[in-house]
């Protein structure tokens, strides 16, 4: 059998295969380097960075639920300066794309991060807008099309790198938000971030998380994410990276068929650190089995009965 082509282009970002690892689930890459050949990954989206280091939420920060995980890490991170100095040189050794996830509390924060990372040299930016805008009374950037567009614009003005905006599912109309960020200059969207959630210990009657609430990830998220992506792709025809509960090649293929041009593996890295590699191999096997020579043949190929 001949070779199948797995390379994709998501907006301006070229990937050798459509499988990345999601922000916050793969640290800064080095944590998994002993277990996973990082060269094989389509890309690594690193843990969300802010201008200043952030200490994060009080423990407990994790609770498992049926087919899912609720986390309340609180965006703990070492800050952009230390990332550039201490983590980026290591990541640069690998033949994979480095996408840096950023978040802030004002438009200025986002612009500053974009400028610093562009100067340092990374392959793309992923903008987490599931964050409170301090000036606007803590309203999330990601829940309002106007501020989502303004954040995107603030980032795009400071960089010529491909920009992906990571959308939160906690909105009434995700298409409206996606459209706003694309019009503001984003190359595409990453969908989705975790879904707000909580869990209670019935014996102590206390919340199981130190932060009371957290974000739900894992297999239980997949059907929700798929439906949202389908809505966005069919209305807007824009580049999407699909995220949510991808545990296997079959899960990833569902996203690609619905129209995501790439996928990110998140929580599954904890369960099996080699999930992303198995997903790549599984996609290749699937393409061979169905006699496709190029992954592009299946992207967005979903057949909707008339």
């Amino acid at each position, binding site marked *: 059998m001949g070779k199948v082509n797995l390379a994709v282009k998501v907006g301006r970002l070229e990937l050798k295969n459509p499988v990345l690892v999601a922000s*916050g*689930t*793969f*640290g800064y890459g080095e*944590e*998994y380097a*002993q*277990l996973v050949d990082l060269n094989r990954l389509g890309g690594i989206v690193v*843990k969300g960075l802010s201008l200043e280091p952030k*200490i*994060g939420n*009080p*423990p*407990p*920060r*994790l*609770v*498992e639920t*049926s*087919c*899912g*995980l609720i*986390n309340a*890490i609180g965006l*703990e991170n070492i800050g952009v300066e230390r990332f550039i100095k201490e983590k980026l040189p290591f990541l640069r050794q690998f033949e994979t794309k480095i996408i840096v996830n950023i978040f802030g509390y004002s438009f200025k924060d986002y612009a500053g991060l974009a400028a610093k990372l562009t100067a340092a040299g990374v392959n793309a930016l992923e903008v987490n807008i599931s964050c409170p805008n301090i000036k606007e009374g803590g309203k999330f950037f990601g829940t309002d099309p106007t501020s989502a567009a303004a954040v995107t614009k603030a980032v795009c003005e400071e960089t010529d790198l491909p920009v992906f905006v990571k959308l939160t599912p906690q909105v009434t109309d995700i298409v409206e938000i996606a459209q706003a960020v694309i019009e503001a200059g984003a190359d595409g969207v990453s969908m989705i971030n975790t879904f707000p959630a909580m869990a209670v210990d019935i014996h102590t009657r206390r919340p199981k998380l130190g932060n009371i609430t957290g974000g739900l990830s*894992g*297999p239980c998220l997949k059907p929700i994410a798929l439906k949202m992506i389908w809505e966005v792709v069919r209305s807007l025809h824009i580049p999407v990276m699909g995220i949510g509960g991808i*545990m296997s090649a079959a899960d990833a293929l569902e996203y690609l068929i619905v129209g995501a041009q790439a996928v990110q593996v998140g*929580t599954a*890295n*904890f*369960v*099996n*650190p*080699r999930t992303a590699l198995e997903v790549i191999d599984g996609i290749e096997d699937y393409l061979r089995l169905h006699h496709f020579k190029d992954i592009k043949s299946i992207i967005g190929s979903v057949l909707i009965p008339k």
Partner: protein
Amino acid sequence: MFLETAKVVEHCHFIEPGAEIFHLLTLSAPKIASSAKPGQFVMVRVGAAILDPLLRRPFSIFYQGKDTISLLYKVIGKGTNLMTTWEPGDKISVLGPLGKGFKIFSSEPQWLVAGGAGIAPLCFLGSRLREKKVSFKTLWGLRYKIAPALMGVIQQKLGDLIIYTENGSLGYQGLVTEGVKRLRQEEKPEGIYACGPLPMLKALFRWTKEEGIAMQVSLEANMACGVGACLGCVIETKEGYKKVCRQGPVFNAEEIKWEK
């Protein structure tokens, strides 16, 4: 650190009327076995294609064989419940060895103080201390007695130990924290290694502080990755949050903010 497909070699269930139930699982995992140090742990995947329970479960290494590791565990919830059904020949995905282990104190005598399943990392440590001919004593606090067969396994690794049970069905009646005070009348330890429930560790810390005795503790936290990537397993220390999976699970007791 290795990701190994381990085979169940032996699975013993120490079940007896009136006794605290433990399970002893021996896995053939040559790479992990040959590099494991006392106090380190592994993350065990509960089912290969199973998504619920989703996450791996952390367990201390109870002892190390030539190509094997043994885990001593209690049933807590759905993960450990499913584990009890594993039979010899079953294949299990194991990630390890993880974390930093115990640092052996330089002077003697030393004490190991365990509560419940907290005996697991201390048994591995104790067998290492015996090899190094370090003089030590072990105190183990339990709710009830345990099956004699399990006692046999532990004595073979650790030598004699002092047992405290809450209902007095084995050894002395009372808490192990009373046991340390009694033993202190005989000797002063140069260092204590402890693992067990948080209230026990807190009480021990207060006492060791009054007595001026150094202590290392092995702590637990909910974990997702086990390798320092998710930042989910932090505990509060005097130098801020630290990851139990990477900077621990063994810490110097003075480092920890116990009041939290």
